[in-house]
C-alpha cells in the first residue's frame, strides 16, 4: 500500500556534497512494507470488546449505605464516563501503534533522513585495495572500513538484506545475493581480507548493478536499494585516466545505478589530513640486470624506490634480503615525488631457486615497502643443438658454427662458456628437454605430433627454442605441426611459405627496437646489416594468422631483423611461458654467410640471452596473475602444494598433457613469495614472487568537489566522512529504516505508561 501525500520540501542531509539539482522536490510517498500485518488492526477492537464483556460480568452484593453510593455516583458520573473513554482510547491507540510498527511504515523521499522504512537492500562495497592498509595509529583504513560496514549492518532493521562486494581489480562479490542474517553478514565482513591489488571502480559499479539486479529478481520484498562505498577515495581509483568515451560510459552507468539505488560514499581518506596522508614510499621495481643467473657468479640486482608524496626523504635505507636473510643495505636520497635506483651485487652460492626481497624503511603503508624476486640460479647454461643433417665430420654439420658461437657466449660479463651438447632429432623424445636452458633446432626437416607436444611442454615450463631453417626443412610439415593447425598449440611465431632466393639489399634492423639487436645500434661496422643471405623462408607472421586472430595462438611475435624487402629474417616471440626465436635462414653457411661475419657471434649471444631471459621472469608475476608451471608427468602425483606468503597452504591440481603435466594457481591477490612443493622424486621446491602494481601506492585522494563535479557530475549521492580522532562514528545515514518503527514503539511505551498512570489516577488500579 502506497499513498502519495502532498509534496513536502525538506532540507538535505549533506548540503555540501549534494548538488542543487540532486534534491528535487518530489512527492512524499508513505507506505508499509508488511501489509499482512494490518490484519492485526482488528485487535484494536479488543479493549472495546473487553469493556462490553466486562459489563456483563459483575458481582452482586446487598448494600445498606446506598445513599452515599448514589451521591458519589451523582457527583462523578460525567467524569467516570470521560475517564472510561479516555482509557479505552489510550488502549486502542496502543494496539494501533503496535500494528503500525510491525507493518514497517516507510517514507519514499529523496532526503535520506526521511526515508526510514521498507525492507532495504544494502550493498556494502568495501575498498579492498592495498592502499587501504595505510595505518593511522594502530588501525588501518581497512579496519575502519570494516567497522563502518559492521555498524551499518548493526543499525539496520530486521528484514533488511545485505550484499558485500570487495572493491578490487577485479572486484569480488563476497555475498552476491541478499543475506538477511545480520550476524552472518557481520562475520563475512570480519573475515574480509585486504587484497594487494588496485581497485577498478568501473568494474565495481558493474558488479554492484549485477548484485542489485539479482536482488530485485530474487528478493522482490526489498523495495529499496542503498549502495555504500566505503574507502579512501584514492585518486587513482576514482579519477583514473581514461578516454572521453570510456568516461562518458562510466558516468552513464553510474547515473543508471543512481536511478535504482541510493548511492552513499563514506570517505575514510580525509581522516588523515594533516598526518601526511598522501606521503608514501614504495619499492616499485626489482630486477636482475642479467637475465641469466649462474651459481657462484656475481650478479647485479637493481631496485627502484619512489616517493609518492611531496617530501624528500634523505638517507633512506634500502635493504636487500636473500632467502629472508639480510644481504646488503644501501642508503639513498629520494627526492620528493622522484625515483631512485639502487644496485646491489650479489653472488648466489648454490644453484636453485632463491627469494630476493628489496625493502625500504616502513611507513604508514608497509605493503608496498617490499618487492620480491624469484631467481633461479643455474649451475651453468646448457644448450642442446639438434642437428637436422648430422655428419661424421663435425665441420660439415649444420650446427658447427652455431655451437662454436654458443660456446663463446654465456654470461655476458664473465664470458663463461656454455655447455653445448649436439644431438640428432631423436633427442627431442629421448632427452629431458627441461634440463636445458635452450634448445636450438637447426635444419630439422619436420616434427611429429608427439615431438611438437614435447616442445610445447618445454615452452610451457619457460623453455627457450631457437629455430634455424635450411634446405631440409619442409615448410608444410612445420605449418601442420607447429602453427596450431594440429592438436598442438602454435609454437612457431609464423607460418612458413615459399623459399626466397638471392634477395637483394642489406638487412633492416627496424630501428633496433628489439632487445636482440639493440646492442648493434651505432655499431654498423659490425657487419650485421651487410651479412649476406642467399636463401630464406618467407614467413607469414602469427599475428596475421587466422588462429591468432581468434586468440588461440597466444603468440606475440615481433620481427627483430628483416630483409631489405621487409621479409622477416629473425622473428622473436613469447609463447606461453617460454620464448621462441625463428631465424628464417640456415645456421650454417649453406643459405647465408652470416656465420662467417663478425656480427654472428654477438647476434647468437643476444639471441641466446633474450631467449633464455624469459626463464628469469617465469617465476615473477603481479598480483592477480596466475602462477603456472609444467612438470614431467609422473604417475601418482595429482597436485602440488602451494605455501602462500601468509603461511597458509593450498593445493593446485595437476592437469595432464601426456608427457608433462601443468598446474595453475590463480589466488595470487597477496604479494610475497609463494613456495611450490611437489612430491616428484628429486624435485626441489620452486619459488614464485608476486608483486604489487604500484600505481595504487599513490595515496592522494580526490576531494569532495572532484567527486561531485568530475566523478559523478549531476548524480545524486550521499557523502559522509568523519573528523580526525572521531574514530568510528557513522552518522544517522544508516538505520533510518527503523526510525518510524522505533518512534512508534516508543509511542506505544508512552501510551501504556500514560494509560497506567491515568488508571491509577482515576482509581481503576488496585490499591
Amino acid at each position, binding site marked *: 500500500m502506497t499513498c502519495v501525500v502532498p509534496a513536502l520540501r525538506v532540507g538535505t542531509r549533506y548540503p555540501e556534497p549534494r548538488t542543487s539539482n540532486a534534491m528535487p522536490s518530489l512527492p512524499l510517498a508513505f507506505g508499509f512494507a508488511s501489509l499482512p500485518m494490518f490484519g492485526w488492526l482488528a485487535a484494536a477492537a479488543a479493549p472495546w470488546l473487553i469493556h462490553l464483556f466486562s459489563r456483563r460480568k459483575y458481582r452482586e452484593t446487598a448494600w445498606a*449505605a446506598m445513599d452515599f453510593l448514589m451521591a458519589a455516583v451523582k457527583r*462523578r458520573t460525567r467524569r467516570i464516563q470521560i475517564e472510561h473513554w479516555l482509557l479505552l482510547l489510550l488502549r486502542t491507540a496502543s494496539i494501533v501503534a503496535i500494528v503500525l510498527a510491525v507493518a514497517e511504515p516507510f517514507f519514499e523521499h529523496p532526503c535520506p533522513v526521511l526515508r526510514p522504512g521498507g525492507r532495504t537492500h544494502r550493498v556494502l562495497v568495501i575498498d579492498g585495495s592495498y592502499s587501504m592498509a595505510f595505518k593511522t595509529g594502530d588501525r588501518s583504513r581497512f579496519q575502519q572500513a570494516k567497522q563502518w560496514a559492521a555498524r551499518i549492518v548493526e543499525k539496520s532493521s530486521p528484514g533488511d538484506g545485505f550484499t558485500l562486494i570487495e572493491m578490487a581489480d577485479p572486484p569480488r562479490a563476497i555475498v552476491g545475493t541478499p543475506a538477511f542474517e545480520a550476524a552472518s553478514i557481520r562475520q563475512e565482513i570480519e573475515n574480509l581480507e585486504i587484497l594487494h591489488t588496485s581497485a577498478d571502480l568501473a568494474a565495481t559499479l558493474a558488479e554492484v548493478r549485477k548484485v542489485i539486479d539479482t536482488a530485485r529478481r530474487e528478493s522482490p520484498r526489498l523495495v529499496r536499494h542503498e549502495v555504500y562505498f566505503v574507502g579512501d577515495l584514492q585518486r587513482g581509483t576514482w579519477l583514473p585516466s581514461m578516454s572521453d568515451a570510456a568516461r562518458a560510459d562510466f558516468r552513464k552507468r553510474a547515473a543508471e545505478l543512481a536511478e535504482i539505488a541510493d548511492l552513499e560514499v563514506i570517505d575514510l581518506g580525509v581522516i588523515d589530513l594533516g598526518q601526511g596522508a598522501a606521503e608514501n614510499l614504495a619499492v616499485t621495481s626489482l630486477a636482475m640486470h642479467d637475465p641469466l643467473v649462474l651459481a657462484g657468479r656475481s650478479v647485479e640486482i637493481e631496485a627502484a624506490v619512489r616517493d609518492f608524496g611531496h617530501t624528500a626523504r634523505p638517507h633512506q635505507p634500502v635493504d636487500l634480503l636473500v632467502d629472508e636473510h639480510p644481504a646488503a643495505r644501501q642508503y639513498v636520497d629520494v627526492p620528493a615525488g622522484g625515483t631512485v635506483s639502487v644496485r646491489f651485487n650479489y653472488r648466489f652460492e648454490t644453484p636453485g631457486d632463491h627469494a630476493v626481497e628489496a625493502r625500504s624503511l616502513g611507513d604508514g603503508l608497509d605493503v608496498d615497502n617490499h618487492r620480491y624476486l624469484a631467481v633461479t640460479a643455474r649451475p651453468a647454461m646448457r644448450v642442446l643443438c639438434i642437428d637436422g643433417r648430422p655428419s661424421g665430420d663435425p665441420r660439415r654439420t649444420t650446427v658447427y658454427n652455431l655451437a662454436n658461437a654458443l660456446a663463446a657466449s654465456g654470461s655476458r660479463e664473465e664470458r663463461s662458456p656454455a655447455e653445448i651438447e649436439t644431438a640428432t632429432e631423436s633427442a627431442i623424445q629421448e632427452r629431458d628437454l627441461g634440463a636445458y636452458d635452450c634448445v636450438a633446432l637447426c635444419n630439422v626437416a619436420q616434427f611429429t605430433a608427439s615431438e611438437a607436444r614435447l616442445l610445447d611442454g618445454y615452452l610451457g615450463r619457460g623453455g627457450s627454442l631457437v629455430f634455424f631453417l635450411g634446405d631440409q626443412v619442409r615448410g608444410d610439415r612445420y605449418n601442420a605441426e607447429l602453427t596450431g593447425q594440429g592438436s598442438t598449440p602454435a609454437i612457431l611465431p609464423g607460418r612458413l611459405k615459399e623459399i626466397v632466393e638471392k634477395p637483394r639489399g642489406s638487412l633492416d634492423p627496424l630501428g633496433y627496437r628489439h632487445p636482440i639487436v639493440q646492442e648493434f645500434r651505432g655499431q654498423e661496422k659490425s657487419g650485421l646489416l651487410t651479412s649476406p643471405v642467399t636463401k630464406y623462408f618467407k614467413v607469414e607472421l602469427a599475428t596475421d594468422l587466422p588462429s591468432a586472430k581468434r586468440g588461440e595462438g597466444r603468440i606475440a611475435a615481433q620481427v627483430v631483423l628483416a630483409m631489405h624487402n621487409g621479409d622477416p629474417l629473425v622473428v622473436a616471440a613469447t609463447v606461453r611461458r617460454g620464448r621462441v626465436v625463428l631465424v628464417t635462414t640456415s645456421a650454417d653457411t649453406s643459405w647465408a654467410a652470416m656465420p662467417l661475419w663478425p656480427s654472428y657471434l654477438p647476434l647468437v649471444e643476444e639471441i641466446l640471452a633474450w631467449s633464455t631471459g624469459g626463464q628469469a621472469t617465469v617465476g615473477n608475476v603481479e598480483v592477480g596473475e596466475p602462477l603456472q608451471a609444467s612438470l614431467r608427468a609422473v604417475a601418482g602425483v595429482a597436485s602440488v602444494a602451494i605455501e602462500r606468503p601468509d603461511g597458509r597452504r593450498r593445493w593446485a591440481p595437476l592437469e595432464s598433457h601426456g608427457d608433462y603435466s601443468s598446474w595453475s594457481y590463480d589466488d595470487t591477490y597477496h604479494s610475497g613469495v609463494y613456495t611450490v612443493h611437489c612430491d616428484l622424486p628429486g624435485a626441489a621446491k620452486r619459488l614464485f614472487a608476486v608483486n604489487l602494481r604500484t600505481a595504487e601506492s599513490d595515496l592522494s585522494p580526490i576531494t569532495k568537489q572532484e567527486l561531485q563535479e568530475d566523478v559523478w557530475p549531476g548524480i545524486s549521492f550521499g557523502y559522509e566522512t568523519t573528523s580526525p580522532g572521531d574514530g568510528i562514528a557513522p552518522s544517522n545515514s544508516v538505520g533510518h529504516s527503523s526510525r518510524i518503527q522505533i518512534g512508534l514503539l516508543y509511542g506505544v511505551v508512552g501510551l501504556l505508561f500514560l494509560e497506567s498512570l491515568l488508571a491509577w489516577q482515576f*482509581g481503576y488500579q488496585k490499591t
Partner: protein
Amino acid sequence: MSASPAQYLDPKVLARLEGLALRARSVVEGYVAGIHRSPFHGFSIEFAEHREYAPGDDLRYLDWKVLARSDRYCLKQFEEETNLVCNLLLDTSESMSYRSEGAAMSKLEYAKCAAASLAYLILHQQDSVGMVTFDREIRALVRPSGNPSHLKDILQVMERSAGERKTATGTIFHELAERFKKRGIAIIFSDLLDDVDALLAGLKHFRHRRHEVVLMHVLDPAEIDFPFDKLTLFRGLEGLPELLTEPRALRKAYLEEMQKFIHRLKWGCRQQRIDYVLVRTDRSLEIVLSSYLASRK
C-alpha cells in the same frame, strides 16, 4: 423460640466487662437506693449543700450549728443514691442486617451481642435495664427492671428481632424521649442510615428530657472502607434501587460522603454532650465495650 443467653453473651466479653460498672455520668432518677446519684435530695448519709429555710420545711433538717454561729436558718440537704435506669435502643431495620465478607457477623447481630452484654452488666450491678427494638416504629418494648430474671425477657425480645423494614430514627427517638419518664441512660445501637437532621433532633429530645445518651454507631467495615474493586451490582436495602457501577472509580467519592456523614454525627453528638462510639463489626466486641466503659470512669 427460646432465647439462649449463650447466643449473645460471650463469656469472654462478660469476663472482660467484670468490674467495669456502667456508672451514670450525670444524674439519673432511681427508685431503689444504689450506686448512682439521684436528683432527688433527701435522707442520706452524704451531705450535698445548704439552702435557706422556707416556711413549711421540716425542722429536722435545720442546721443548728450554722444557726448558732451565723444566726441564719439553713437546712442541710443530702444526695440520694439511687439505681441506674438504662434503656437499650436497638435498631432492627433492614440495613442492620448487612454483613460484608470481612465481617464475622451482621451489624444487627453485633448490636444484639453488645446490647446483651451491657444488659448483663447493668443487671449484674443491681441496676435496671430496659430494651426497645425499633425500625420505622417501635417493635418491642421491655420496661426497665433490676430483676436478674429480666435478662431473659430482653434476650427474647432481641431474638425475635430481624431486620426487615425501613428505619425512621428521628420519629422513634422523639416518641421514646416522651415515653421514658424517669431520667436515665439511653444506649442506642444503630447504623443511623437515616436523615441526619431528624436523627439529631430526636437525640436532642432525649437530652432535653435530661437523659444521658450513648450512641453506638454500628457500621460494617465494608461501609467504612469500601474495598470493592470489580464491577459490582449494589442492591439497595430498605427499598433503595440497584446500582451497577465500577466501585474503584467511586471509592474516593463514597468515602468522602461517608466521612462527611460520620463527621456530622460526631459534631451533632458533641454539641449535645452525647457519647458517640463508632463501632466496626470486624473489631472485637470485648475491646469495644471495655474501652468505652473504661473511658467513662
